[in-house]
Every structure is written in C-alpha cells, then in structure tokens.
C-alpha cells in the first residue's frame, strides 16, 4: 500500500466534524515547501499546545498567578468620560485572601501579611483596584501588574553597603567630629583670652 492510500484511509477513519474531509486530507498530505516550519525549526514542537503553569521554585515568586484563585469584579470607573465612563464597567477589582494564597511562596506571604496588615479587610482579603485606562482588559492587566509589583517588592533584598562605602562614611563622621571639637577648642581659647588669666602664669 503506498503512502497516499494509507493516508487517505487514515483520514477517512477519523471523525470529520465541521472541517471538510477534503481539507483534512489536504492537511494530511500538506504542502511542505523549502520554508516549512519543520525545516526552519527541526527540533521544535510544531503543533500548538497549552504548556502547564511553571512550577513554583520554593522561595521565589515566579510571576504565575492562578486566575481561578482571584475574585475579579467589575464596576464603573470614576472621572470624566461622558457616556462611556457612565455606562461601561471598566474598573477592575481583584481580591484574594492573603493568608490562604498558596501561589505565593510561604516566606513572602508571611512578609506580605506583616507589611499589608493595615491594608487587609476584616475577612483578610487583600484587594487591588485599577481604572487606569478606558478598557476593562487593559485595567485587568494593570491590576495584575500592580499585584506582581507588590509581591516582588517583598522579595527584593536590600543591597548591603560595600566596605568602601562604610569606610567612607566612617571617615566622614570622624572628620566631622574632629572639626566640631576643633571649633569648640577655638571658641574656648577665644573666651579664655578675654578673661583674666587663671592660676599662676609663667
């Protein structure tokens, strides 16, 4: 059995719903030119697929936020804008319980609970709102970006000053002290010169 007949039979065996069998057959025997993708990217996975979410690497927040864990609600934005701003729900409100957010690494979550303690509501929800743009989707993107910034800010370790910097600061402090004491001594001498000499003078 030649390749064409084999392909034809395999196509007819498949369930052809919607997409016509002629085009399906065409795809099976699809045209591969000199610029076909399998020639340009020989080792790549050519079929479109949905990659799994990136695994959390323990301590660091990898930027992945599971959408089903957030409660997103929409409302009307404030500010000028006429009929559009009065009628379209462009403001986005994202809420989630900070203590139960498993997608934030434990260490960062604890830090956030401390830092954002005054920002959580009674039920322990942290929320972020955005009405930056005229579009709901762009506002949602903005809100998520804000959330990621807040989380990442807790993971940034402040850079310890270098030895040279510390040395510089120490020398500055010492110089300042030296000058202050010199000034005191000078004033003291001036005042002493104004007074009558005390004690036995040689």
């Amino acid at each position, binding site marked *: 059995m030649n390749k064409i007949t084999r392909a034809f039979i395999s196509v007819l065996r498949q369930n052809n*719903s919607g997409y016509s069998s002629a*085009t399906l057959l065409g795809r099976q025997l*699809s045209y591969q*030119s000199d610029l076909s993708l399998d020639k340009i990217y020989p080792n*790549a996975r050519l*079929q*479109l697929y949905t*990659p799994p979410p990136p695994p959390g690497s323990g301590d660091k927040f990898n930027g992945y*936020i599971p959408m089903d864990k957030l409660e997103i609600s929409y409302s009307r934005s404030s500010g000028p804008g006429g009929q559009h701003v009065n009628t379209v729900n462009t403001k986005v409100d994202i809420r989630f319980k900070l203590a139960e957010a498993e997608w934030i690494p434990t260490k960062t979550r604890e830090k956030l609970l401390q830092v954002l303690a005054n920002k959580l509501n009674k039920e322990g929800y942290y929320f972020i709102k955005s009405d930056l743009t005229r579009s709901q989707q762009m506002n949602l993107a903005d809100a998520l970006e804000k959330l990621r910034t807040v989380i990442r800010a807790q993971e940034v370790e402040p850079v310890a000053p270098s030895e040279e910097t510390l040395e510089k600061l120490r020398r500055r402090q010492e110089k300042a002290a030296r000058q202050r004491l010199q000034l005191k001594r000078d004033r003291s001498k001036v005042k002493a010169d104004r007074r009558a000499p005390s004690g036995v003078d040689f």
Partner: protein
Amino acid sequence: MAHLRESSDKALKLLRTLPRVQIGNLRPNPNSKQNDKRGRAQHGGDKHGAGNKGSGQRQNFMRLGYETGNQAFYMRFPYEPYYKGHHMKREYPPISLLQLQVLVDTNRIDVSQPVDIATLCNSGLLSLKPAELQYGFQLTDEGLDNFKAKINIEVQHASEAVIAAVERNGGVIRTAYYDPRSLQILANPKKWFEKGVPIPQRMLPPQDAVEYYTDAKNRGYLANPEEISKERLVLAQKYGYELPRIEDDADYEMLTAAKDARQLFLGLEPGWLVNLVDKTIVKLKKT
C-alpha cells in the same frame, strides 16, 4: 594571548631583517613633539602667518562655510524631505475587533474555516488596494472588551492586546507577510483564477519586516511554534485570563490549520493551475 604572540613573533622577524637601530633610523611617535620654533626673523616674523587686515589678522574668524555675506553654498539648496521614502512605506488598513465581531455575528464571514485576506475581501465589505502600497490588514483594539468570537485569523499586524483578545476566546491569530503580487491575487482571487495562470509562490518579507514575523510575541508565521505556545501562556498571565486548552477543542484541526510560508491558498500548492471552466486542477508532474 595567541594574537599577541603572533605580533611579537612578527616584530622579532622584522628585527632580524631590518638594519641596526641607530639614532639616525629612529623617529618620534606622531604628535609627540611640538614645534618649538618661535616666529622671528624673515620667515616666521612680520605678520606671523595671519595675513593682512581682515577677520583673520584680527583673530575674529568667520565660521566655516561663510562667504562674506552672500548666500553660502551650504545654504543655497533647501532640504524638504516630505515624501522621502514614501514609496517604501507599507500601509496596513485597519480592521477593528468591533468590525470583525459584527462580520461574524451577521454571518458575512464563515468562522468555521480559517480567515485570511481572501476571506475578508470576498465578504465584499472590505477591500485591499495593493497598488497603493497596502500590504494587508491590521487588527486594531477598538471593541476589545466585547470581542467574543472564536476564530482562526491571519492578519498582517496585530498588537498585543488584540492577540490577547483573540486567544482569550479560544481562537488563534497569526501574522503573515504577503508580497505585493500575492496580495493582488488574494485581494480578488476569482478574478485572478480566471486568468489561468499557475499559482505563484509567496516571497519572504523584506529585511525590516523579518524581525517582526519571526517573533513569537507577534505570532509571526516564521516564528518557532513552540515559542508561540509558551507566549500564549505568558499573555494569558499578563492579561488575566485562563488560557483555554486548545488541544481539547473540537475544532483543533481547523484552528491550527496554517499556511506554509510559500503558500497562498490553504489546500493549493504553488505551481498548480486551477481551471475554473473545466473545474480541474493541473498539478506539476512529480519527477
């Protein structure tokens, strides 16, 4: 380090053949010695190289190019580059997502098949004029929030928000380049097929467009498909939607149907001759 060794070897080789280094053979490095001759006596004295009268002698020099008041050469010819490069600038007439949604809702476009320039032009509501340097359609973000159609669409340019809007609804968007001849064919396919000319092959994009079409972020047709799959997740995370599992979609075959880089029509190869009268296709003989 090997490079240095070679040059030192070269220097030693030269030394072996050149005459002995003597005071008379040496010369100082350029610009290391200044001329210490003072301007005195017959040749250096009198006006000291400043000439007679004028701005030169008075150390009040005229600027470079100045021609003592008359219009200088460099000021004579105006430069008004209003149309510079206009014949090279590509245009992409816009289609808003709102328009597209209306077309889909009113059944002017068949969404059960992949959508490309030919589909859009055949609807009769949109037209492309390749002769006026229109290189295809771009999808704009007007109507972004209300876009609900699930389509497999191929345009020539789309912004990130638009790509997100299409993929959010489970669709697939791709940006592809068509050279002007291919565009003329696609703008009115029926008229071209009536000519009875074999289908040509599509050419590669010009240099300044290659970067765009090989980037997975723009869903370019020359980009790595694996990168595109990854970028889909990245965009879903950025714009805050759950990426629909396209493999589990019933229309997976249709949604992932893509043209080859040399193909004009899905299902037809370059080199084939379509005979509309006899309703046949003449193909190239496989040698």
